[in-house]
């Protein structure tokens, strides 16, 4: 299973919406419930799913789901 597909599972869990389909270009502007507060839960959910940790400030560099997937890929490979 690729990272985007696994991320989609996480997004569906966090936003309680089984119809969500995220792509590499999805941003917080595309999901109505994605605000700064749900973002914190999303980060924790991603960390748990992929067994990784994000450093402080790392996430601010991410512009969309594609960037997030790339960073996850790097952390898994490291």
């Amino acid at each position: 299973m690729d990272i985007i597909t696994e991320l989609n599972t996480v997004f569906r869990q966090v936003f309680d919406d089984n119809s969500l389909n995220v792509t590499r270009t999805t941003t917080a502007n595309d999901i109505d419930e994605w605000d700064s507060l749900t973002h914190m839960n999303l980060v924790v959910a991603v960390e748990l799913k992929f067994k990784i940790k994000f450093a402080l400030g790392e996430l601010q560099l991410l512009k969309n789901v594609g960037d997030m997937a790339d960073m996850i890929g790097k952390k898994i490979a490291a």
Partner: protein
Amino acid sequence: MNELIVAGQYNIGHICTTHQCKSGLKDKTAMRWVSAHHERTDYTFGDLDAASNRFANLLDTLGVLPGDIFFTFLPKMPEQFFAFLGTLKHRTICGTLFSNFGEDALLDRLSDSKATGIITKKSFLRKIKRIWPQLPELRFVILVDIDEHSEENVYSYKQLMDAASAEWTTALTPPETPSVLHYTSGSTGKPKGALHAHRSVLLQNSTTRDVLAVNSNDIYWCTADQGWVTGTSYGIIGPWSLGVTQVHFGGVYDASVWMDLIQTERITVWYTAPTALRMLMRESPELYAPFDLSSLRHISSVGEPLNPEVMVWGEKILGKKIYDTWFQTETGGILIPNRPGTPIRHGSMGKPIDEIEAAILSDDGSQVGVNTHGNLCIKSGWSSMFITYINNQEKYDSRFRDGYYYTGDTAYRDDDGYFWFVGRSDDVINTSGHLVSPFEVESALLELDEIVESGVVGVPDDLLFEKVITYVALRDGITIAPELDLKIKLHISNRLSSIAAPHEVIAIEKIPKNKSGKIMRRVLKAWYLGLDAGDISTMED
């Protein structure tokens, strides 16, 4: 008589649209809509009038009656404004729901109000469908993003609007006619529906002009979501009743995008929240250097007390004064503000507006002296005063004593008449300007099998003013692993709202209660803050 009111017509929807057109502003831009992806669309007052007329006709077609209750459940988008104004023109009561509400929060509000209809988005329909069987009075849902009616009682906004006439004559609406409904949280029980009347436009209009210092040439931006009272009172009613051009932005927080918006749209007055300002304050000062903010005269703020550091930052980094204002859902409009032209005392709420009489009263109703803490009270009768908590007149009556409204805030007045916020006199949590009921969160937590008891408190937070902390007693054999911690946070976020989601979940053996079974939240708060819990003689064994 205010010139706003012509021939006794107090209807807010009419005043914000038809009245502006009749006053010569038909072709003036009422709203510049900037989408999350930065597409810009201008709507004139004529457009606003026609679209809200169509919506009023649409409600007629669906058999909605004046006095019924209709809700918007939308993120910030043009359709929300058209629906809000059209509903008021129809003399139907318009409730607005924060777009991040989960199904428990929706159920509480829609069932208590016996709402007849709701306008929302396709992606939110799933939440409505889960609770619709428990809402026998809810007759229909309108979706803004489907082209054709899809199923029984689920209608396409586009199809209905296309079929509706743009002509509408708003019936004469007396000042006491019910208008806007906002639910607000208390420390006990379910949220209460604070109902307002069309006369509120008088104060919302005058405070937009005199406190926010907005004039007819301004380009005004209010960041508040229309799900909350600021979003309707000062993101719709106040400015449009003055014929002012508003910018509305559909995107999320982004410091650079926001500064670019002020620069590009030449925004002159900006009304926002302390949490947003504190987030901006955390950005590097260099971020602001490239932006030309010369159009902006000043910033006003509302939601929770504005700390002096933010005011200093605003002057130093943005070169702008920030004026804190105070009001509540129940007050309908700003009552105690700082404002341009009056010296600011950093950290103060400011001075009461001329229309009201504010007082600091002791619990027995007597006036307390200056610089002494007491209940912040407002003499009953200001024009935007709420008219009831629907289905809970007893609770409404309990907020008034000897002609004064007890706000639930404690404060003091200094020698020069400035008011200073001290705190809440109940357990309600103010997080990023939104009130969260600990009772609602505690109740939702008990829906999880793993949790036996829960207690919820708000504690000070540098960014949010207060953050939500949850104490839980777990079933035997269950421990607070990261997966359970996340499950609890997501449960609250999705059942109530992201605002109510706990920042920390702390497992303890037993939730402290008094001998009559009431959760002793002050003890939990003291534990969290490492303070003495005080008198615990009433705590159960």
